């Protein structure tokens, strides 16, 4: 379990996925009244962690890669399929709130996993 600290890596990936998704949801909510804005979303954590649905996609993993905006807001954000209102805006505040709650729970879960793994590690080192 703690040989190469995989638990921590997974918890870290989960928390940072939640953070990225939160940024995208905030962007959707802020633009809820912008004409022509299309709401964005990220694939869920499972598929983004295991690398599903990225087959055949080229990924920029370094800054010097072509089109490589490494710090960009999630490389794999996709436009959500939902019905746009007459002004071309496809954000639904209700859906965004639902997603925001999901994200918050995912983040809390990741932190809980991290914390309890940390506790186990501390105990096994004989500290309190």
């Amino acid at each position: 379990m703690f040989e190469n600290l995989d638990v921590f890596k997974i918890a870290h990936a989960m928390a940072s996925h939640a953070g990225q998704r939160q940024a995208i949801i905030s962007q959707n909510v802020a633009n809820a009244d912008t004409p022509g804005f299309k709401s964005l979303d990220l694939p869920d954590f499972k598929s983004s962690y295991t690398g599903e649905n990225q087959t055949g996609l080229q990924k920029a993993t370094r800054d010097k890669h072509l089109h490589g905006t490494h710090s960009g807001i999630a490389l794999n954000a996709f436009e959500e399929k939902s019905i746009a209102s007459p002004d071309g805006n496809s954000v639904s505040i209700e859906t965004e709130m639902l997603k925001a709650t999901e994200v918050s729970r995912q983040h809390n879960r990741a932190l809980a996993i991290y914390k309890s793994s940390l506790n186990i590690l501390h105990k096994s080192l004989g500290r309190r």
Partner: protein
Amino acid sequence: MTDFSKSLTVATSGLKAQAMRLRHLSENISNADTPGYRRKTVQFESEFGTRSDVASVSTGKVNLDRTELERIYDPSHPLADDTGHFDGSNVNLLIELADAREAQRSYEANLKMFEQTRKMSSGLMDLLRR
């Protein structure tokens, strides 16, 4: 910029834009009886900032509503012309109030996102505090 600060930035831009919209709405409502007043409308624009790569929202140019002004019949009014009419404003209180309610709703949504991001990041900080 971390995802949390991006999120806070974009939520703040939403709050600002909605507050600006509400400001123009209250201007319209308070001038509902001003002769010759045309209602102001603001358009929201999404902009990719130079510092961040999130699409924060901002209010664009203020536009004046070009619809006909209301003709009010009142011969005793100082602005009345030969037929006894003068130009009122083209503010429709019902529309302004509905718009204000929508602005309030969107403001609350942005506020909730801000609050939630803050909670998530303080949860992260709690990991350091043992």
